Each structure stands twice: as C-alpha cells, then as structure tokens.
C-alpha cells in the first residue's frame, strides 16, 4: 500500500508544481538569452561565442543528470523506493539528450577554431564516454519486458558507472597529455570575463529549471505508463471468457 501511495502523492503534487516549473524555466531562459545576446562578442571568436551559452549549461546538465541517476539508484538499491527507479529511468534519456547537445554544440563551436569537426581532446572525449554510458543504461532498461525487474540491475550499472567516472576522467586526461593534444583549445579559459559569466550563470539556472520541468513531466509519464501496464496485466488475468 505504501508503494502505491507514494507515486499517487507525487502525481498530485507534481500536477500543481509542473506549470510553475515550466513557467520559471521559460522565464529564466528568456532572460538568459537576452543577456547572452547583449553580452559583448569575443574579440577572437566573434559571434560563435554565443554557442557557449548553450554548450556549457548542456555539459553541466550532462553531468548533473548522471548524478541524479546515481542518487536515485542508491534509493532503488537501499530503500527500494518505487519513485527512485522512476526518477532514474526518466532522467536517463534527458541526460543522453543534454550530453548529445553538449557534444554537437562543442563540435560546432570548435569547427572554426580547430578547422575540423572533432578533436579527441580530453574534455570532449570524456563527454563522449558519458554519452555511451547513458546509451548503455537506456539499452539495459529496454532489454527488460517488465520495468520492475529492470530497476535493480540498471541501478547497479548506474552506480558502477558513477564510481568509474573519476577513473575514466583521470585515464582520459592522462591519455591525452601522453599524446600531445592536437589542439590547445580549452573550454574553461581561465580568463572568462564577468560580462560573459553572468549570462552564463543565468543560462545554467535556466537549463537546470528546464531539466527539472522535463524530468518531472517524464516521471509522470513513466508512472502513467506503468499504471497502464499494471492495469493491462490485471485486466488480462481477471478476464472472464465469453461463451
């Protein structure tokens, strides 16, 4: 009964919170975009610097999403909380999308600087590996017919991945310095001007709000999807054959 009560309360709560969340995300995003366009263009990069205002928040969310999944996985494994699994499952495709966005914008941003679409620099490569880990999680989820049975295996994989992230990051950095990086371009230039920093911060907040809104909406969908499934199983088992 407790297991059913929690998602029910979540559905009621999220229904009233969600519109405000969407509105807040849209509002802050609008402010962020205005600030970004009014920020001075970089003397080196010109207008392409605008890509930064999408790229950096996306990269930030790519990592935060995984943290959400890892935290939820602890909830699944330790407390077996049904909402924890729903949260992790809803976050994975969103995380994959933001990671993909970070990769694409990184590539677009880098093109004028590097002269190629892609360089195997430590940061981009780490994000690519993160993307692959997201795809692995999604694939494992989809391999199970019954979402309830997928919860714990996926939680274990997510936590194993979480523990591995620092190791992967360290090895990729080491691999990259070993091989004389092809480019000296860095995303976190140490001298970021305050006139750029403010719009960037606002955009980061906007993206975080956007993530929260999408995440809550996706969780609602996931809960509804599971209810439909449960109702179907119930309907099939209580079916009284005609005749």
């Amino acid at each position, binding site marked *: 009964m407790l297991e059913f009560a929690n998602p029910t309360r979540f559905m009621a709560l999220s229904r009233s919170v969600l519109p405000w969340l969407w509105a807040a995300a849209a509002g802050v995003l609008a402010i962020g975009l205005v600030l970004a366009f009014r920020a001075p263009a970089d003397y080196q990069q010109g207008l392409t610097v605008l890509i930064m205002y999408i790229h950096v928040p996306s990269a930030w969310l790519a990592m935060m999403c995984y943290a959400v999944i890892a935290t939820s996985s602890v909830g699944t494994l330790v407390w077996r909380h049904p909402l924890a699994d729903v949260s992790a499952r809803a976050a994975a495709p969103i995380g994959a999308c933001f990671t993909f966005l970070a990769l694409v914008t990184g590539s677009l941003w880098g093109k004028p600087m590097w002269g190629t679409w892609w360089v195997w620099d430590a940061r981009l490569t780490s994000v690519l590996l993160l993307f692959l880990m997201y795809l692995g999680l999604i694939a494992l989820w989809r391999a199970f*017919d019954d979402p309830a049975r997928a919860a714990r295996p996926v939680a274990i994989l997510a936590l194993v991945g979480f523990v591995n992230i620092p190791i992967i990051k360290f090895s990729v950095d080491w691999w990259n310095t070993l091989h004389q990086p092809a480019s000296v371009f860095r995303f976190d230039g140490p001298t970021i001007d305050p006139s750029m920093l403010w719009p960037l911060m606002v955009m980061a907040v906007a993206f975080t709000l956007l993530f929260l809104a999408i995440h809550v909406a996706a969780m609602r969908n996931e809960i509804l999807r599971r209810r439909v*499934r449960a109702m*179907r*199983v119930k*309907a*099939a*088992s209580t*079916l009284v*054959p*005609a*005749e």
Partner: protein
Amino acid sequence: MKLTGRDLACIRGGRLVFEALDFRVDAGMLLQLRGRNGAGKSTLLRLIAGLARIAEGELALEGGAPDVPVKEHIHYVGHLDAIKPALSVVENLAFWARLLEGEEVAALAGRAAIDPPAALDAMGIGPLADFPAAILSAGQRRRLSLARLLVAARPVWLLDEPTTALDTDGQACLFAMVERHLSSGGLALIATHVDLPLPAATLTLGVRQPEPRPEVEPA
C-alpha cells in the same frame, strides 16, 4: 481425403522411437494418439508435419490439392506456441493468418477461414486483442495458439496435447472447434492423455518396446 502412414519408423538422437507403424485417417475422422511418455506421440505428429525425418516407410495424403506439398495442408499446434511477446495478440494471429493461408488448400477444408479478431472472440480472448502478448497467461497463450486453426483453413489438424493449460471452458471451446472441423470434412490427429468427448479411433504407441537396433546395442 485420406492420410495414411505405412510401416513408418523414426530415429531421434540415435534412438529408435517407433517402427512398423501403420495408421489411416479418413475425412471427418479423429485419430487420438495414446501412449506413455516417450512413446513417440509428439514425434509422429512432427513426422507427419514434415518437421522430423522419416527413417523408413511412407506417408501419403490422398485427395489433397495437386502440386501443393503435403505440409501445406496441415495445421500443427505443438508444445511451442510461436507467439512473439513483443507483438500484440491480434498482430501475432494476423501474421499466421496471412502466412498459413492458401487458396487451393482452403477449398478442400470445406469451411471458410475467419478473420483474426473473430477467431480471438471465438477463443474467448477477444478483449485482449490489442494487448501485448507478453502479458498472456499460459492458458491464454494456448487459446491464441489454437486460434491459428480458425484463421487459415487447412484440412488436416495435428494437435499435440492441446488441452494443456486450458480451463474447462477453454477445453469445451477446443472440442467444439474440432467437432466442427470434422463435420465439415476435415481430419485430425490429437496426441492426448485425457479422454476426448468426441468419437475417435485410437492409436496406441509404444505397446511393445522397440527392439534396440544392433548398432546401438552395447558390445
């Protein structure tokens, strides 16, 4: 129409399952196969369906459609149900309806095929049509398998313990189906351990132990 087997023998996995087996099934007739486990009931059905090799003897279907292979006259419902869990119930059935249909053979069956939703209704699982097959229970899967018999008209039915997992209502459904099939000139072979409430000839397999073949006999 007449299905005959003469002096049939079958070897599986180096073991002689049966030999010197004769049977004859005429139109409108039901032959029930009885016998202990391992006597070769399932093997005989697979043999007739062309799914196992005949070691000796011959199998003939008289009065079938010319130029159409024997196995295309046959409906086979075995232990495996050929149901894809990822497809919906009606998608599963519609697939087999299209694949198993054949005009010349259908003309011989003396009874028209019905469309998949109607067949599901007839088997009492009509309301489940659009559900994924993954959520069906064992009995419902069996009903879906048996619904194949209705969506394509074929004159010869081979049913391997078709009552397995069926409740009394499902069994009644099945017996009515078989009865209609026989009365419209079809013929059926049913391997079973329960008594069928239908007039039937009986072929009991494995009455005498087959003698071990010389080459598998221990030295």
